[in-house]
């Protein structure tokens, strides 16, 4: 798809431009639905569509009232609190366990690697509704259903495959002679891990952690079954909001979440570039 060559015939020219128009339309399809809710969230009316006033850029047609609802209504504030309690706890758990396991798995001497990998990755493959059903049955047997602990454990296990995949990918480029050099210079395994290995794989660990965070933060199905009313998270509140009482406060929540995901995406991108640069520096 290089630039259009000067000798291109008419048909080729037409196709070249129409292909770009088609691609542009598909990009619009991808991005427009996300952007369209941003102006709508400032609607002064309780409508889900643009009012004539909004289209005329009348200042009175815009307001922050849905944001006020989002920030003051007890249902929304509680949901936000719950989300910011459950997601970090689950992230911490899955990042710690996942990083350790990824290091073990990438040692090359790991016995039964294929089978273990299949078990560890399975939470990502099994459809959420099946995981949710199984967890609901099992957690109600052992008394974890409807508790914060149950939701955190469930979200942590859903996040671990992402940590394993990202950290393993970082470890592929990790130069093993660095740990040997550290050991040669008299560092113990623990010092080697924290002073040599960890700083180098940190970008992978952090982006794995971000994946785990977003998995928990955005998860509805499992929390719907494993949690009870007290554990209602932000996506759950949006889900009930959409299903039962459609209130434009959802659009305010959605706008805030879009901003949030832009920040997360930027962080992951920066980390990925940094990791590639770091790995480029080390030989091999």
């Amino acid at each position: 798809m290089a630039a259009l060559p000067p000798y291109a015939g008419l048909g080729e020219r037409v196709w070249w431009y129409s292909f770009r128009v088609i691609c542009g339309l598909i990009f619009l399809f991808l991005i427009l639905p996300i952007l369209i809710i941003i102006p709508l969230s400032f609607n002064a009316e309780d409508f889900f569509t643009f009012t004539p006033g909004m289209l005329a850029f009348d200042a009175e047609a815009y307001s922050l009232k849905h944001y006020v609802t989002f920030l003051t209504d007890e249902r929304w504030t509680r949901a936000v609190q719950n989300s910011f309690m459950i997601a970090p706890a689950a992230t911490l758990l899955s990042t710690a366990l996942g990083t350790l396991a990824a290091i073990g798995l990438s040692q090359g001497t790991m016995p039964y690697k294929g089978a273990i990998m299949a078990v560890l990755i399975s939470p990502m493959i099994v459809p959420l509704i099946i995981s949710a059903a199984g967890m609901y049955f099992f957690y109600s047997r052992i008394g974890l259903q409807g508790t914060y602990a149950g939701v955190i454990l469930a979200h942590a296990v859903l996040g671990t495959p992402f940590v394993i995949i990202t950290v393993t990918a970082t470890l592929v480029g990790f130069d093993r002679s660095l740990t040997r050099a550290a050991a040669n210079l008299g560092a113990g395994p623990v010092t080697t891990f924290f002073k040599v290995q960890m700083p180098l794989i940190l970008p992978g660990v952090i982006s794995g952690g971000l994946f785990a965070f977003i998995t928990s933060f955005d998860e509805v199905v499992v929390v719907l079954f494993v949690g009870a009313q007290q554990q209602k998270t932000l996506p759950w509140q949006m889900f009930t909001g959409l299903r039962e009482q459609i209130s434009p406060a959802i659009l305010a929540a959605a706008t805030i979440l879009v901003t949030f995901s832009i920040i997360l995406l930027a962080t992951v991108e920066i980390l990925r570039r940094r990791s590639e640069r770091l790995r480029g520096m080390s030989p091999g």
Partner: protein
Amino acid sequence: MTDATLGGPSRAPSREEQAAMAEKSEGGVMLAADGTPLKLSLARSLRRKRLRAFLLVLPLLAFVLLTFIAPIADMLFRSVENQIIPDNMPRTVAALEEWDPAESELPPDAAFEALVLDMVEMEAAKSHTRVGSRLNYEQSGMSGLFRKTGRRADRVEGDYRAGLIAIDEEWGERQTWTTLKNFSGAYTLGYFLSAVDMTYGETGEIVAKPELQQIYMFLFERTLWLSLAITGTTLLLGYPIAYLLANLPMRTSNLLLILVLLPFWTSLLVRTSSWIVILQQQGVLNDTLVALGLIDDQNRLSLIFNQTGTIVAMTHILLPFMILPLYSVMKTIPPSYVRAAKSLGATNWTAFWRVYFPQSIPGIGAGAILVFILSIGYYITPELVGGTSGVFISNRIAYHISSSLNWGLAAALAVILLIAVMGLYWLYDRIVGIDNVKLG
């Protein structure tokens, strides 16, 4: 990995010479620095390394087994478990063992007596309603029959058969007793039969359910068709985008890739709600069409809460999962092949179709299977935008868990779905490889 004691070939004595020397001096065994035989010492160090690797994986393995694999195993168990009947009605179960519904219309008198005794006991323990609702999943009316019989069972004396039939004529029907007999075991295939629209007939044979009650095969079929449709639309929209991204200069394509990654990172609920906002009757799209005069105000299009809504919203949600694998395969296709084809006289179309496209098939396979796997298990989006005609089998599973409380059937449906996903995943592993999963 080579140990210093082995020595390199550049050193003065060659390895053979060294070994010969060692053989002379140590009696055939090569020793490590600490005096133990080298072979033993290496094996020990390898074992220690393996153990350390395993110990690092162990915490997570235990965690996943406990919090994830155990629930799945529990669900498998629940889909066949039927302990409640033999636990609560031991006498009836024993008495019905001898009876063959194909031979005689009704079971022997002993079974009637056993049922009355069991019923009195269950009534005292207040468990007859639970047993009744369990059997109600298999034959409607059982719940009411058990409640009614439980109330009056203690008054039945003498002729148990006549007494029971006097309480309710259902006890004189063969079907009632066949159902009891078919579900008297501690384990049953009944849930799986229901999940594929089958049931036990009057004499215990397996028959199809009446036409009006057949819903699950239809739902499985619809899930497959809608998932195929979604896979098709994502491929149709994703292929040009991936092609464009793979063939643009790095700087531009990285910038455009953000447009793909942003939806990927945006909350599922946000994307679903924006489609509701856009597609509903008083929504943005319909308003625009009315304003442009393309449709009447009275004839607004119904684009959501039906199959159209499910397909549009899920195509948007799953599109990045198609574009990213396609893009990563297309990036590795060298442009020289297409150029060579063109220089040999191929038209643009031939060069693309005969040279470029075949090389992109691995990407199509990976993306298509990924999207298909993800969509057949989708729950949230079909639930919110699918109305009644656009829901999947997963919505039925959720319904049985939280509304009808028929957990056994929910588990059986989930197990069938799980087997389908595992089969597809095995295929994905064969084509792409489990280790090649990449994120972002």
